[in-house]
């Protein structure tokens, strides 16, 4: 059963009672909330993803709720609880959905150490995954959104989840948060893409979410091996350049890009060295999105 298969009332009822069991990638999230605006966006952005029936073992127990007291009426707020505890300050009520997305990311990064977790976008084409690690000013989300709108399968905008035992990447397709200028960039680049409401004044500026394509959602259970490691670097006016980098350099960058490299100890070392062995490695400097996509398509088709 997909979330879209539940009626609005059924969905609200589950959210208000024992929780809605939402499957996102390898994780099961038990979500509880009674906030109408949040419920609507959850149904919109996760409609193509499975809901599970109780009993089930959830990886994350999330509540998105309105704190009590005066804040119910005066400048109303919303709070994110993970397993009954609140890792963040409350947000303004209308930002419930981005709060949920960030909170879930935080929970995954803190807890899912059965994987090597890269802070990277990941997309797949022809059975191999392109990993785009985040680093300051890199334009990872924009590039990821653009690739997905040109037919690459979305694995994740935020997490490269690498299975420890076999080195496969595991998809975790979720709404892609576009920030500030990149909202319009993607609107222009992919006029057919579904982009949700803009949330102004978040700690990352204005954020709007790009819907996961149906095809990516439908294959969210299918992992794939890594093929390319591309460190993107956006600079206005830069000429496009795809520069190979050597293994030690890639290793260092990737280990530093991981949420849990140190924590994993030897497993982390083995997972990252294996990735460096398996992948072709590049730095991509670009300013024009079309050129960048062409280059990456050629790389994949070579």
């Amino acid at each position, binding site marked *: 059963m997909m979330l879209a298969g539940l009626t609005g009332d059924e969905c609200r009822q589950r959210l208000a009672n024992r929780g809605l069991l939402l499957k996102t990638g*390898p994780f*099961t999230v038990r979500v509880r909330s009674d906030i109408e605006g949040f419920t609507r966006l959850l149904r919109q952005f996760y409609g193509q993803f499975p809901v599970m029936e*109780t*009993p*089930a*073992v*959830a*990886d994350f*127990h999330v509540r998105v709720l309105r704190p009590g007291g005066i804040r119910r009426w005066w400048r109303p707020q919303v709070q994110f609880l993970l*397993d*009954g505890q609140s890792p963040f300050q409350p947000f303004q009520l209308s930002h419930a959905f981005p709060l949920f997305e960030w909170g879930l990311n935080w929970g995954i990064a803190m*807890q*899912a*150490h*059965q994987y090597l977790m890269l802070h990277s976008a990941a997309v797949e084409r022809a059975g191999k995954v392109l990993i785009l690690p985040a680093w300051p000013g890199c334009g990872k989300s924009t590039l990821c959104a653009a690739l997905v709108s040109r037919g690459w399968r979305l694995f994740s905008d935020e997490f490269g989840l690498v299975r*420890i035992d076999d080195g496969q990447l595991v998809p975790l397709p979720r709404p892609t948060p576009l920030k500030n200028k990149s909202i319009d960039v993607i609107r222009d680049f992919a006029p057919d893409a579904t982009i949700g409401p803009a949330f102004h004044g978040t700690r990352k500026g204005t954020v709007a979410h790009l819907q996961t394509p149906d095809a990516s959602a439908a294959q969210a259970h299918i992992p794939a091996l890594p093929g390319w490691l591309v460190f993107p670097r956006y600079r206005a006016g830069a000429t496009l350049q795809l520069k190979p980098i050597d293994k030690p350099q890639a290793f260092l960058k990737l280990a530093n890009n991981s949420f*849990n490299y*140190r*924590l*994993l*100890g030897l*497993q982390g070392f083995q997972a990252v060295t294996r990735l460096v062995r398996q992948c072709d490695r590049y730095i991509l400097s670009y300013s024009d999105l079309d050129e960048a996509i062409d280059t990456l398509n050629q790389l994949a088709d070579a």
Partner: protein
Amino acid sequence: MTANRQYGNHGTGILLTALRDPGRMIDFGLDEWDLLLRIARRTRLLGRLAVIMDETGEMEQLPASVRNQFAAARVFVSQYQRTARWEINRILAALEGRDVPLVLLKGGAYILAGLPPSRGRLLSDVDLLVPRGLLDSFEQTLLAHGWESVKLEEYDQRYYRTWMHELPPLRHPGRFIEVDIHHTITPLTSRLSPDPEKLLADSIPLTDSRLRVLQPVDMVLHSAVHLFHDGEFINGLRDLVDLTDLFQHFGKHAGFWEELVSRARLQGLLRPLFYTLRYTNRFLDADIPAAAMIATDDGAPPGPVLYLMDNLIEAVMLPEHPEFPRHRRAVAQWLLYVRSHWLRMPPGMLLQHLARKKIMSWRHRKAAAETVA
């Protein structure tokens, strides 16, 4: 016996069942797992359940979602234990072969001595017992090798050095674990004053003879004193689990129980031993001979105090259901915290200290103070 007593809170029941009788985990349904994993994570016992499940060889029969969370928990266990072992290794390296008797306490001792409580044990500091006469030179050696004092506020420094049984914690920059150097096992001002010389004299060398651990009865008594007199019940259930393991491990040896009781009497530690036997047996089914129970009865507090302690300990040690937290837990924690200070300081000093803490909003290492101050 109250071992089979029912606890109103289902979450508590399921965790205690898993701890007492791990073999029963295999029959848990998905709903039970869902609750157990949450509660075990909160009480820092998830890693232990994971390691014990591994030992049973039946991990493969569990639902994938459970196995994944156990796998993640084992990653934490390995990291914490590796970090502690390395810290101990670096301390030995700093001593460069000098003959300082280094007695490991608690988590570090369990892990290096390979004792049963090390299974899945997390630890955030390495505790050492050092003869008082060598304390200064030992601290200077570590400082000279790059360790730094964690508490820099002058008041904190003075508090530790004047009243506590340990130096202000040290930490090496770039490493993520603290070193607590003790010269005795209860605060200097405490009404309990076991003789640290006896503890050191009877300690036992490990395979690496530069390291030592307390002899079994002292190991139990130290853990008991720490649990019931240090005021930090955050890991209370985990500490009771340690003690239950020690009882099961050492209790088989002839004479252990008699020696335990007489050592407690000699060191003036009958009260904490009484509590330990009572609550390990009550909550975790620890197998304690009736004779030992009776022999520690002298250590029991007056009836009304015991009644109060039973209630406070249950409220604090047993985890709450994550969706239905009880206010009484926070209250009980505060009362036990004040009690622990009462036990270690004269009353005038206590008020001074608690007020001081409030003013300075002292960032206590452990969350206990945070939640109540």
